[in-house]
């Protein structure tokens, strides 16, 4: 089948998509955007989190065909004009990145959190990121990164 989808601001048409493919497969294997990660492919780990229109979703749980005519924003589309988003900067600086496989999903989820709540409490951060597994960091530096990103965005 053919899928028409706007990805990171660019209108794209993809042909020969098998109906069983997920949005994650479409992005990673057919559109050259492997930033969204394939850690569980069953919606448990959050590493494939992308915006579908304006809502963060697990791309592995969205059929490719469901993206028809919609807007997708992935981790590759967060930096604007060659400048990292403050969330991305904060993850690097705070030590929230180790192996980094969870990072794209956490960065997108954090981006969405701060967009709707510019000053989240620790409890709010934990609740918002509860669907994103990280095996390396024990989450302490991720909390640091989210707090730092919120401060940066508030003063930007």
């Amino acid at each position: 089948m053919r899928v028409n989808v706007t990805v990171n601001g660019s209108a794209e048409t993809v042909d020969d998509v098998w109906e069983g493919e997920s949005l994650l497969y479409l992005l990673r294997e057919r559109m050259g955007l492997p930033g969204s990660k394939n850690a569980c492919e069953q919606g448990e780990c959050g590493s494939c989190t992308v915006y579908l229109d304006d809502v963060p979703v697990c791309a592995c749980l969205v059929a490719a065909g469901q993206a028809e005519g919609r807007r997708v924003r992935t981790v590759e589309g967060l930096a604007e004009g060659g400048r990292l988003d403050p969330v991305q900067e904060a993850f690097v600086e705070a030590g929230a990145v180790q192996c980094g496989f969870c990072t794209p999903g956490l960065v997108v989820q954090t981006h969405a959190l701060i967009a709707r709540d510019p000053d989240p409490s620790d409890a709010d951060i934990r609740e918002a990121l509860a669907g994103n597994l990280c095996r390396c960091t024990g989450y302490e530096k991720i909390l640091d990164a989210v707090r730092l990103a919120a401060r940066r965005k508030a003063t930007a």
Partner: protein
Amino acid sequence: MTSPAKAAPGRGGVGDSPVRPDGTLKVTGEFAYASDLWTDGMLWGATLRSPHPRARVRALDTAPALARPGVHAVLTHEDVPGRPVFGLDHPDQPVLASDEVRYQGEPVALVAADHPETARRALADIAVEWEVLEPVTDARAVAADPDAHRVQERGGIVRRQPIRVGDVPAAKQAAEVVVSGEFEVGIQDQAFLGPESGLAVPADDGGVDLYVSTQWIHKDVAQIAPCLGLPEDKIRMTMAGVGGAFGGREDLSMQIHAAMLALRTGRPVKMSYNRQESFFGHVHRHPAWMRYEYGASGDGRLLYADVEIVLDGGAYTSSTENVTGNAASLGVGPYEIPNIAIDAVGVYTNNPPCGAMRGFGAVQACFAYESMMDRLAAACGLTPVEVRRRNAVSQGSRMATGQVIDSPAPLAAMLERVDAMPPPPAADASDLRNLPGGVAQTTHGEGVVRGVGYGVGIKNICFSEGFDDYSTARVRLEVIGGEPAALVHTAAAEVGQGLVTLKAQIARTELGVDRVTIAPADNAVGDAGSSSASRQSYMTGGAVKAACEAVRAELLARAARRTGRDDLSVSGGVVVSRAAGAVASVAEILGDDAIEETREYHHRRTTALDPVTGQGDSHTQLALCVHRAVVDVDVELGLVKVVELAAVQDVGKIMNRLSLEGQIHGGTAQGLGLAVMEEIVVSGGVVRNPSFTDYLIPTILDMPPMRLDILEYPDPNAPYGLRGAGEPPTLSSTPAIVAAIRDATGKALTRVPVRPEHIVG
């Protein structure tokens, strides 16, 4: 003439916390992990695995799979070009099963196809006629009667390692207090997030180029080459981005399979496991059964330990020998005990295969010996901290192996520091999220009880028992764009721990340059050993330091010839004379020339353990961590919330505080997982929960705030005095959390993970 250079503070040298060189790529999604690789004309590989833990393959028909459009190859054991078996320590694991499968998930056949779904459907087309056999699943039965339960030619026992010190029977007569217990540890999974993946590209010379995520490139190549029937120099392996490892990438997974498919089809082949397959694609932490008896004087000083440890390694050897050795040599932990009898045994069964996981044999024993220390404290009327302090090792103490601890072991001071930390405040029960169970709580916290527990762990750093452990580094210094620049090349695996950052820090400090590039890890440079045993800061750090020192010596020799001075050092890209100040820039000395040096770094040789007495100087370094856990337990619902974890760890030297804290946090989190949630549940050799829906790892809601107190007691034998740091916190957090749950509930809790039914039952 070769006095060390100094990178100015804040310039990213040793002791600073510069940002990761791969950090920006990782936050933008551009970092190429093994599962991200893609090339024109690529095929997808897939693996047919045994559904049975033990069965005979009566017949295998691949014709229907081959007939499916889009399928390019279907391979079985008959297609293995060389040696049919591989293995880390012993080649006893079939590349593809020939006659008998010995664990659920054992690879049987391979498919290469033009789409992953085509490959999956082709696997279903392969007709296998199975003769299902009764699996061997009782590790203790194997230990008791190995010949009756042989699952493979090597037999029922992988290794028995006794430890005998003093006279335990006599000590049993003298003891005033005796405590005993049986303890169990379930199977833990590394659960790294990046699935086993890689790309194999056939090369014009008949060899293969492999891009994979692994922990040990050279060991992979040494295992792959004989199975492919190729010389090692025809296997060119480059590290692809690694999405975590924790021991689970020390054994091979898809490497030989992808190479076989690529060589057969003449096309690049990508393999990438999904999460379910990943649970069958790597070894796990050994489950353990442990019986402990301790005797002590009335004031809580240990007189004897009588210990039995059984570790289930599954069907193939993997690293079970060394895991068993660790469980034995570290079986009673960091305590002075004059009389010791330990019998540790690793066995073969048809349960899931087990091998390396963070903590490596020391984790299981730590849960038991720390549980025993709490029992001893209770029996003697002492606090948990005091009973540990009274028996704590220090520099000069003998371990159970007779090995004298010859560098600082500040356990008593660590215990005092963790004990002095202020307790966390009581939970604010007005916000349900603060209670055990969180927003799923159905009460107002009436049944919530707070508990506090302590745990101590000791871990060997680097490879032990006489292994000639080394790493290799090549360092090149040259002028690029008018500036001196260093290139550091090693084969060491960056698995997330931050070794790439540390290598650059060492080069900046030793060469006095700011600009350092880290070359991709591959086998065009010498062996770096594995990114395991908390060893890479020590070993590859030591190799990079040695190679930099050699480069610096050559640089300063050239500068000496040019200036006629012999009081030179290098700092900030400038050669400095003690008497005359700056005499030349590094760029001037180098000109168009490059200086390149390669060095191997070996740690002090260790010795084997005596097979009868278990005595020997088997470890080159030991590292301590102490945890205090505070928990809230809903004793009516069986729910646990870990409120705070505090850790005191001695690391010798803080090389990079940001990375180090990340290691302690992450290691602590994996210990929490083992304490309260993580277990591969097996019945009759069959895994019941191979998914992240059913195998739970800690989320951000499960992890509490952590308080760290990091000490620096230098080890004079180690580079910069550092002590490996990645594993010790994984040992001690588990027993601390379980002790805290016992404190809250009064339950014995002899098995991890602790489940709600253990609390309310």
